[in-house]
């Protein structure tokens, strides 16, 4: 089934152009794996970028440019054609490849989850040296409410399992939410299964209200 909540135009634009952080790319590529609609939108953005490149005023290349290129080709040796078949061992996975590559194994439920607050566990995937980016999986128990909060910078959330509901609607597998400082929401895991989502952030959540502010250092989203 196709997702109903898609990548925003601004974010898609920036991903097509190659300007997003690695954490964002993992979430966006995972959504594209699950969403034929955004794959087609992405193809259109890339076609536009290709046209911009095509219409550039040509710039002189070095005189020996083509010779250098043929020399590099010769040095690299024969072309290894990538196998068309699927990599073995991943046949049964429902975890999108761009995420699966970062996990110790592809069974989301048995990852070494860390408890954050009652009802919420996390698995941190932030790359080393990713100073201003965060990438993590969250597992939210059925019925759990995340306190009302807004976001510093922007945040992408992709639902992989279960579902949640907030002010913007119901989010199920494959749906993606784009959140920024303008948006304040209070998501509730609303099905009888754990809600597992992949989150990329730059900046920390700013919680509203007293209790949530006390939670902030613990949740540290």
């Amino acid at each position: 089934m196709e997702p109903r909540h898609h990548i925003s135009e601004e974010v898609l634009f920036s991903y097509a152009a190659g300007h997003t952080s690695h954490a964002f790319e993992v979430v966006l590529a995972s959504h594209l794996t699950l969403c034929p609609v955004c794959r087609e939108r992405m193809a259109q953005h890339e076609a536009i970028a290709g046209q911009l490149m095509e219409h550039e005023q040509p710039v002189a290349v070095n005189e020996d440019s083509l010779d250098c290129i043929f020399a590099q080709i010769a040095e690299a040796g024969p072309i290894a054609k990538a196998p068309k078949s699927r990599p073995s061992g991943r046949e049964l996975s429902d975890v999108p490849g761009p995420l699966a590559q970062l996990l110790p194994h592809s069974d989301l439920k048995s990852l070494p989850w860390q408890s954050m607050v009652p009802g919420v566990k996390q698995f941190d995937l932030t790359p080393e040296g990713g100073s201003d980016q965060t990438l993590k999986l969250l597992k939210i128990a059925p019925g759990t409410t995340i306190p009302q909060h807004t976001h510093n910078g922007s945040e992408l959330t992709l639902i992989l399992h279960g579902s949640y509901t907030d002010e913007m609607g119901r989010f199920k597998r494959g749906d993606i939410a784009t959140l920024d400082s303008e948006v304040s929401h209070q998501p509730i895991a609303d099905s009888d299964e754990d809600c597992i989502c992949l989150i990329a952030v730059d900046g920390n959540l700013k919680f509203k209200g007293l209790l949530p502010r006390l939670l902030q250092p613990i949740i540290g989203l």
Partner: protein
Amino acid sequence: MLHGNIVVTEKARMPGHPAADPDFAADMQSVAQSQDRDAFARLFQHFAPRIKAFLLKQGASLAQAEELMQETMVTIWQKAHQFDPAKARASTWIFTIARNRRIDRLRKQARADVDLTDPALVPDPLEDGEAVVARSEDRERISAAMRDLSHEQLQVIKLCYYSDMSHSEIANQLDIPIGTVKSRIRLAIARIKAALEDA
């Protein structure tokens, strides 16, 4: 090496090339199927100066732009068999290669991208032959629609692709309200989409 620039220029002007193959799909296939160096030289002649210009616009120095352009051309040779003319124009595919080489240069992690052989992939809805033809016509309509954009629309679209500025930074740069930036982008994209839907 035989392939100096002058030789290439003469080849490119021979009748039958490149006018007969304006989007270079046949040259791409000759490179993929028979490692055809003349076809590759024609691709180089057309695309290399444009790839270099594109990289310069994105802030690369002259030396970096030349080096990344050369790497991009090497990758085009090595991956030509992955190019599918039914899915994209050569310029689109070549743009994605240049983009990815640039990212590889800027940071440690390679670009995360969709793998169409991913077991988790939700496939495209089944398409009949007509839909496939319509899709390749779409690519033509995108380039036609791009030519019809206003100067202001093209300017913001270019800033979005060339720089990693946010919409508010673009507004500062052009000294216009952010709402104007957003609406120009929206109008430009709507115009391109309308051209696709008119068909």
